């Protein structure tokens, strides 16, 4: 994968992670499952990209983590949105909509 492509996807990945965590806390694998679910299988986030993203976002203060029990009784690290994370989700959603509208109209133009 070239570096440029990662950068392009990173913004999208952040948005998807924030969105996936909006309803409530999830552990890493849960996040990727939720993303797969809400994008109807369009995005399958590999652990190799997911975990760096989670940690980066945690360090940025958008996520916080705590240790809890998983559905099959294992200790797992759960991520949830912070206040800053919710604001970031709103901001990125707005951005995405604007970009999306612009791109769509650009593609429609003849």
């Amino acid at each position, binding site marked *: 994968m070239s570096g440029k492509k990662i950068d392009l996807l990173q913004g999208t990945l952040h948005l998807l992670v924030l969105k996936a965590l909006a309803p409530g806390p999830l*552990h*890493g*694998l849960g996040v990727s499952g939720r993303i797969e679910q809400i994008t109807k299988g369009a995005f399958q986030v*590999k*652990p*190799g*990209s997911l*975990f*760096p*993203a989670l*940690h*980066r976002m*945690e*360090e*940025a*203060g958008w996520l916080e983590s705590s240790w809890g029990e*998983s559905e*099959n009784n*294992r*200790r*797992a*690290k759960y991520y949830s949105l912070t206040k*800053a994370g919710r604001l970031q989700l709103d901001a990125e959603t707005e951005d995405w909509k604007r970009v999306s509208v612009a791109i769509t109209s650009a593609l429609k133009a003849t």
Partner: protein
Amino acid sequence: MPLMPRLYSLRRNLLQRERVERELAEEIEACLEMLVQAKVAEGLGPEEARRAALIELGGVEQVKESVREVRVGHFFRTVWQDFRYGVRWLRRSPGFTAVAVLTIALGVGANTAIFSVVNAALLRPLPYNDPSGLVLLWGADRATGAERGQVSATDAADWRAQARSFEAVATYGDWRPLLAEGSGEPERLPAAQVGDGYFDVMKGQPLLGRTFLPEEQDDGKDFVVVLGHGLWQRRFGGDPSIVGRAVRLNGRPHTIVGVMPPDFTSLPAGLLHEPAELYRPVAEQPAEAERGSRHLRAIARLKPGVTLEHAQAEMTTVARRIEEAHPAENTNYGVRVTPLREDLVGNVRPALLLLFGAVGFVLLIACANVGNLLLARAGARRREIAIRAALGAGRGRIVRQLLTESLLLSLAGGGLGLLVAAWGTGVVERVGLQLVPWLGRVETDARILAFTFVVSVFTGIVFGLVPALQASRPDLNESLKEGGRAGAGAAGGRLRGALVIAEVALSLVLLVGAGLLIKSVARLRGVDPGFTAGGVVTMSLWLPGVKYPKGDSQHDFYARLAERVGNIPGVEAVGVTSVLPVSGGFDGRTIEVEGRAYGAGERPEVENYYVSPGYLRAMSIRLMRGRAFTDADTKDAPPVVLVSETMARRQWGDEDPLGKRLRYYDPYANREVPWRTVVGVVADVKLTRLDREGAQGLYAPEAQTPSPAMTLVVRTAAGEPAGVVPAVRREIGALDRDLAVFNVKTMDELVADSLLLRRFSMLLLGAFAALALILASVGIYGVIAYTVSQRTHEIGVRMALGARRSDIFRLVVGRGMLLTLAGVAAGLIAALSLTRLMESLLFGVSASDPPTFVAIALLLTAVSLAACYVPARRATRVDPLIALRHE
């Protein structure tokens, strides 16, 4: 991104590393566990489920590493990690580390030493207040081509009145008063007479009292002096009430009107005879009658924003105007404006830049050598690197780690290089001070430390980057498969070959440069100076006008002194002269030959000496024709002269010069100038420098043209001529105990001084070239030896297939020679274009001197043949059985 959480994370990542790591491991483990359970739930067996889960995860360590890479502070942590790893690695191979660090230390140290001198001479501001605006104004004579002539007070006053480019213009000249007061022995002081405005030009504010008033330039009001800070401290104990006191100089009272501060630096030797410790007014109001009396020099300060070109253009116009108004004195007389720095370093600059370039070459060779070592080691480290890559290290990460190691090497080398430089600077400084007297101390300032640091880092990157890129090539499978036998591959071999070629080429350029300089100095040594320097000691005297007012008394003193010194045991001959050859000084005169008509500016210029009868014998200057001066050539006898061979040829061609008459030209014809008869012809003497063409020399008897300032020339029978100096001093003291003796030097010293710049360049360039040769031969040896060790197997196969030992020898040496010859060819081409830059330092040898080029090429080839010999011998001793089993 918000700052606070990141700072918090940074602290946590750096300080609670273990906890962070533990949690990361646990998180990923948990994830893997869940994946496995999911796979089991899908119906896979436990083993298979785990395999599938690991594939989906992409490897536990890889995921962990990718998380670590995005963490805040990751960069610092890895740098620190690389640093520790690098130190450990370097300590594991002390031999390699020592060779590499020493090589770099030599390269960086030599560069720092030369840079210190370049910094002091060419980069650091001159030690004057606001020095960038200071320019010198010279009389330029279009008739003779002389561009740096003296000026008259009258012309300088006109320049000052007419030119708009300058804030201030002032004249100055030498003065050597005798001071017999204050603490200490009577002393001939280095001093300057300065025209009105001099202290404005130099922006000097007195520490005590004042500087000179304009009216103190009037004759009779000029017995005032300003003390330099050093003299005030040394002779007057820093007396704060000194201003207003009178001090006897040359036996006459002078009032001290001011003292300059310690940071007021005198103009240096070269512009003055010696840096001045004392100042007095020029005491010459500009007078029309004195326009042709050019015995002063001029310095000026440009107005802010005025360029040198503008000032030169304006002065050309001003000079033309004066030329038209005063054709008798100023025909063909222009003005040249030069920046002060140019005059101070003009002759040293090419040599310094040459050395700076040469030392840069040495550093490049050192880089190539260390790079080669690293390449060879990178071959051996392939497995290690491949494993790191397999464990998730990206290529950039590996390159960074390898670069950290080379930077460690180069910084260690740079640190050690500072020690080398401290020693080298000492050596260079001692010689440099003689070359550039105003240089002052070559100090290690922040700029030099910064230079060393930058050069070290640059070095580390230059020699480290290529091997690092080479070693980190992502052909992981290949390396792991080769199972450690890995050679560095064809690409690595080609690179090393290219580095050796570059090394050989660079050394060849240096060697050729050194060879040309050595040949030049040898040629110069072979030049017949026209006199014999060995066994001669010289010293200067100056008779104060108060005690010796008349020419008769001056001549009488020197005649009696010569007689007394001649009686000292061991003294063979004694003479006095007004000008000493190769000392740098000269007395240019205009003459007229009897019976010839001259237009303005057409009269011959000669280099003039007033000498006593003993002078020719004391200097061993050969008399070619006619007779020398005798004691009978007194002031009442017919006026006579001797001429040099060159002068005889230029003035009279094939005619016999003996009996011809000439006289010194007096533009004012104030008094009758006597015609002088040529009574003899003497050998040419190289006057100012040994590499100058023989000039037209003219000698007149000192008895007929007495002068207060003379140099005593004493030829001793044998041994060390300086040994007679105390006895000579005693004789001088016996005649007049108030006289100061100065510039005591043997002729050998004076000749050596005149060769100094070339000898200095030759020695340094020779040292650099030798260093380059050693480094290059080590480089060739290293590469060939490495090739042999890598190809042991192949050599074994060849021998098993029937190759003779001589074939193997040829194979190995052939590779070395191929590289050498390619390097020699490239070096010859480079040298041809580069040696042209050093033409000004050469003498009697062309910049593309074929014998030098051929000899150096042969020398390099021979040395590299020797360097190949040892590994080639080793190759022939390969036992095919062992080599094959070695597999």
